[in-house]
């Protein structure tokens, strides 16, 4: 175990030394990977910001629930109780049919027309704010309320939520496609880098194999190198995005003052940053693994 740890530590220091031995090549490689990652990263950051901005600023869609005209006070209490206990509901107001009629009279200014109706045609109603404002959650709530006793009709204005969802979906798709393309680029860059390294270290690899080195032993420093390259590229991509956001935020500040709004783009959250680093390191490792498996085979006999 101790020995195993020593082997890995030795390998890591050797790999770092190798990175440092050809600083220009290493920096260029890291730069290429960083730029490649910065593009989808920037898209992702904008997407996350738009998402949270939209959630803050959009009119919260409300659900209107109307009771049947023959509903009694007990039925109203029943609905009121259910809403109070419902986890998906943040707040709601009850509007009695009398109040609704009074509002209508006051607003429409046609009191006499309404008075001529004789009986009150309006139902009792609730206006409900939901905890989750995405279209799917709202529709689920609507369907649930519909099934409650004495409920005549549930109305939901989800067009805005749908539109926002569709836009964000498109944004996510773009991030995904860009991410996949540039992940491929990252794998290709490490693949080629490792290929060149194996080429320049032919003699060393050959001798090591001849005197009893196992394939994992020979592959290990290349895998470390690939992972380190990916990691450094990920950090570089993060820094590039960070610099870009700073520039944009500087421009946004006067604009935000004009509109008295809080317009600041937030950088990646900590979990997202960690995932980015892990993902970049894993891709570098993968590229190195593919390359090493492919190019070390030539040293085997036959």
């Amino acid at each position, binding site marked *: 175990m101790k020995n195993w740890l*020593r082997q890995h530590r030795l390998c890591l220091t050797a790999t770092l030394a190798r990175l440092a031995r050809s600083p220009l090549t290493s920096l260029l490689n890291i730069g290429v990977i960083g730029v490649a990652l910065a593009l989808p990263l920037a898209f992702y950051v904008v997407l996350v910001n738009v998402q949270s901005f939209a959630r803050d600023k959009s009119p919260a869609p409300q659900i209107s629930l109307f009771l049947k005209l023959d509903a009694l006070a007990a039925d109203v209490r029943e609905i009121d109780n259910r809403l109070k206990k419902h986890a998906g509901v943040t707040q709601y107001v009850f509007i009695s049919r009398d109040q609704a009629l009074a509002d209508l009279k006051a607003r429409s200014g046609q009191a006499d027309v309404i008075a001529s109706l004789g009986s009150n045609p309006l139902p009792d109603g609730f206006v409900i704010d939901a905890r989750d404002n995405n279209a799917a959650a709202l529709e689920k709530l609507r369907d649930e309320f519909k099934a409650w006793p004495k409920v005549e009709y549930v109305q939901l204005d989800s067009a805005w939520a749908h539109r926002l969802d569709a836009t964000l979906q498109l944004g996510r798709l773009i991030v995904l496609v860009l991410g996949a393309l540039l992940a491929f680029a990252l794998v290709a860059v490490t693949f080629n880098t490792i290929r060149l390294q194996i080429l320049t270290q032919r003699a060393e690899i*050959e*001798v090591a194999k001849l005197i*009893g080195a196992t394939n994992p032993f020979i592959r290990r420093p290349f895998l470390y190198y690939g992972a380190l390259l990916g990691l450094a590229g990920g950090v570089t991509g993060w820094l590039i995005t960070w610099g870009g956001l700073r520039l944009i935020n500087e421009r946004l500040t006067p604009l935000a003052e004009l509109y008295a709004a809080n317009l600041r783009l937030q950088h990646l959250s900590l979990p997202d940053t960690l995932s980015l680093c892990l993902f970049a390191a894993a891709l570098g490792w993968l590229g190195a693994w593919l390359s090493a498996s492919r190019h070390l085979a030539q040293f085997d006999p036959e």
Partner: protein
Amino acid sequence: MISFSNVTKRYHGGHEALKAVSLEVQPGEMVFITGHSGAGKSTLLKLMAAIERPTAGTVLVNGQNAGSLRASAVPFMRRNFGLMFQDHKLLYDRNVYQNVMLPLDIIGYDAADAARRVRAALDKVGLLGKEKAMPVTLSGGEQQRLAIARAIVHRPSILLADEPTANLDSAYAVELGELLRSFNQVGVTVVIATHDEQLQARLQPRCIVLAQGRVVT
């Protein structure tokens, strides 16, 4: 310790380097493989260390069939050997100390133990003062001794040396012969491919003579 029975080796071009070779090497023995250039001496050593595989016949090393080992088992089998190659195969971008350290890194020795063994091996071949030197700055004889140090640093039970005295003047060759004999005297099985007759005369080993890929005597 090493046993060949009816071993034939045909290379890719169709050339038969060894033809139905049978031989035995006992533990602790010193054996010379001699013969004209192209007789198949290097090929014989390569078959022992599973660097090449036999086309027909079996090669047994410590009871293991070297010709049919799984690829993943070959490295561990090779660690039984100390190998000196006809072309040295030193690493020219590493210094003397690092060259000798390589086998121990591969096996995974503890750091302190490894350093001690490298010093001991360098001391044995008289290169202790040149730890930091790069191989290109060494003379031919010194490079040969460096190759020996690398071959014996992990204390193998068998030493295979391919033309260890090639390109050495006779004084160096004598010195090197003594060195090889000293390993044999502490129990290491030594197999040397050579056409150095002076060396042969000095060490008086058992000789296996090859001609055109066949054992003559």
